[in-house]
């Protein structure tokens, strides 16, 4: 006697209850607050905002808490919420040249107007686990000094003054900026859509692709022209008012890679650019993004497309971790109907194989 398995609905409810319980962990340990996550796991929050495509520290912190620290799951939560928000329009382009810089380095010049600003970075920390931190020791107060009032022009603008680097393409006021969340993507894709895709792309995926280009799979000789992190003003053109209204400021990291020069009989040689931009302090992300932005310009710059990092359809179709994780993990869903179909075919082929080879049939229950 066989009774069909039932009760999936209760199983789901129970699984959700158990998940909530596991998320909380030992109830004798104090619960994490969103402020704690936002303040003390701030780089995780920055990544979730960047790849979640939504600038909201509190929601990103909530997502990280709800996702038990699984950042891709948190990004997914933020994206799903973002998809329900009404779209009012696009802001005016932000001016990263006017950034309130908290960190700013260039690897191409020893000194630059406005100076190198090391800022908060892991770069020169010795990676030794710190037992004092385990005990919750309060860190020393940061050193202070006179804020510089001088401008901090972008290194690429300095190079650009002498024509040594290709100019950034001018903004075309009449051409709306593409948005791959509103319009289905088609190939070849313009650079605005490529950059949007890369900004939302999985950091690990871009890191690996950028790395592959450094190792020769689409090499383009990059220099880190400048990496800057700080606050920029955001303005929105209110059509009714007829002028741009300030909305506040956001923290951004920008990376401008200076790459291999190009030139021709009619055009003087100059460096080319790769660009990366992300919310918060996201240096690995922006550097990887800038490398891949440059490799993806192969078609535009007349370079031969030979490596994965240069292949825009390959990169853009596989860069989104919410899409990727969904499709990889969907293999958990039942597939017994198609598997059964495959099983039936395989059994038939094996039977025919056995007959053809005059061997006794394989040990299989009778069909």
């Amino acid at each position, binding site marked *: 006697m066989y009774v069909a398995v039932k009760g999936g609905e209760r199983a789901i409810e129970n699984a959700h209850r158990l998940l909530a319980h596991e998320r909380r962990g030992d109830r004798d340990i104090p619960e994490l607050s969103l402020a704690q996550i936002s303040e003390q796991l701030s780089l995780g929050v920055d990544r979730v905002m960047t790849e979640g495509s939504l600038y909201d520290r509190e929601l990103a912190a909530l997502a990280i808490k709800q996702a038990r620290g699984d950042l891709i799951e948190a990004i997914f939560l933020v994206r799903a919420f973002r998809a329900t928000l009404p779209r009012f329009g696009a802001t005016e382009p932000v001016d990263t040249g006017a950034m309130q810089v908290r960190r700013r380095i260039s690897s191409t010049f020893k000194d630059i107007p406005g100076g190198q600003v090391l800022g908060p970075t892991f770069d020169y920390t010795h990676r030794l686990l710190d037992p004092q931190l385990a005990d919750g020791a309060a860190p020393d107060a940061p050193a202070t000094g006179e804020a510089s009032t001088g401008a901090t022009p972008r290194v690429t603008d300095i190079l650009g003054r002498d024509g040594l680097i290709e100019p950034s393409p001018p903004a075309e006021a009449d051409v709306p900026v593409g948005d791959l969340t509103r319009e289905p993507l088609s190939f070849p894709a313009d650079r605005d859509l490529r950059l949007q895709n890369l900004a939302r792309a999985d950091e690990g995926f871009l890191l690996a692709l950028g790395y592959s280009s450094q190792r020769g799979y689409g090499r383009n000789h990059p220099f880190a022209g400048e990496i800057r992190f700080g606050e920029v003003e955001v303005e929105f053109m209110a059509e009714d008012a007829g002028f741009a209204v300030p909305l506040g400021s956001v923290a951004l990291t920008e990376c401008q890679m200076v790459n291999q020069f190009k030139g021709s009989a009619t055009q003087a040689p100059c460096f080319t650019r790769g660009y990366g931009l992300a919310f918060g302090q996201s240096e690995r992300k922006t550097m990887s993004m800038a490398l891949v932005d440059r490799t993806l310009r192969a078609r535009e710059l007349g370079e031969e497309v030979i490596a994965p990092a240069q292949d825009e359809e390959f990169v853009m179709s596989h860069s989104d971790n919410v899409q990727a*994780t969904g*499709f990889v993990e969907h293999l958990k869903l039942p597939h017994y109907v*198609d598997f*059964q179909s*495959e099983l*039936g075919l395989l059994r038939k*082929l094996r039977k025919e194989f056995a007959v053809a080879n005059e061997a006794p049939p394989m040990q299989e229950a009778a069909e």
Partner: protein
Amino acid sequence: MNAPAYNFAYLDEQTKRMIRRAILKAIAIPGYQVPFASREMPMPYGWGTGGVQVTAAILGPDDVLKVIDQGSDDTTNAISIRKFFGKTAGVATTTSTTDATVIQTRHRIPEAPLHAGQVLVYQVPIPEPLRFLEPRETETRRMHALGEYGLMHVKLYEDIARFGHIATSYAYPVKVNARYVMDPSPTPKFDNPKMDNCPALQLFGAGREKRIYAIPPHTDVVSLDFEDHPFTRYRFDAPCALCGAGDSYLDEIVTDDKGGRMFVCSDTDYCEQRQQAGHRGSESAAPHKERAHV
């Protein structure tokens, strides 16, 4: 904090309009994959987001919704999607194929014949039937534009040369209205003939791949084959152990680790209706008892 407030059937009206326009074009060009700006849904890509968006765009308060996965109303993903629409649209739900006005499915077409006025919404993982032969969208789009499907026939023919049969048992490609080669989603090829001249409207949604396509009612849908190797349905040759049906697609249930197995209808509604009508199989239990997993 921005507290979320959701619209009827979850999607905002702008998104619904965009999906509705894509559905109309899909119906007007049977088998052609219409690109649409698929939204991020509150369930993972690959778990039915395309089907869910199509259903959300068509569903109204008078609809009666049925959701199946692997032919069953009680698989976890079917339950999850049914609950989603119960919660966001407040529509009536049913497990009866006949009573439903909208049926969302993954991997099966119900055994009971569909009727005019019904809409069958398929969840589709990879909408492009040529994708495994040619991974580039730019190339496959050109092939569809020219109606150039030689590559597919070569693949099927290579199967025959190698195995003596076309070695595709599910997601078996079809030609719609004598023009577009189409992926029927990973349904077993047993279900393919049900798509041909079907009185119901068939809509296909692929969320991650951002495509919607359709088969209008009473449209020619032909499974690809060769004259000397005609398309055949496959079904395990046994009656259902619960209802005795000899015409339904069967799930294989492994009953022990000594080679014991039994076969029961994959379409649970079909099986239950038959049992209620008095049909019995070799392993029938009556009355039906609930057994919960924890």
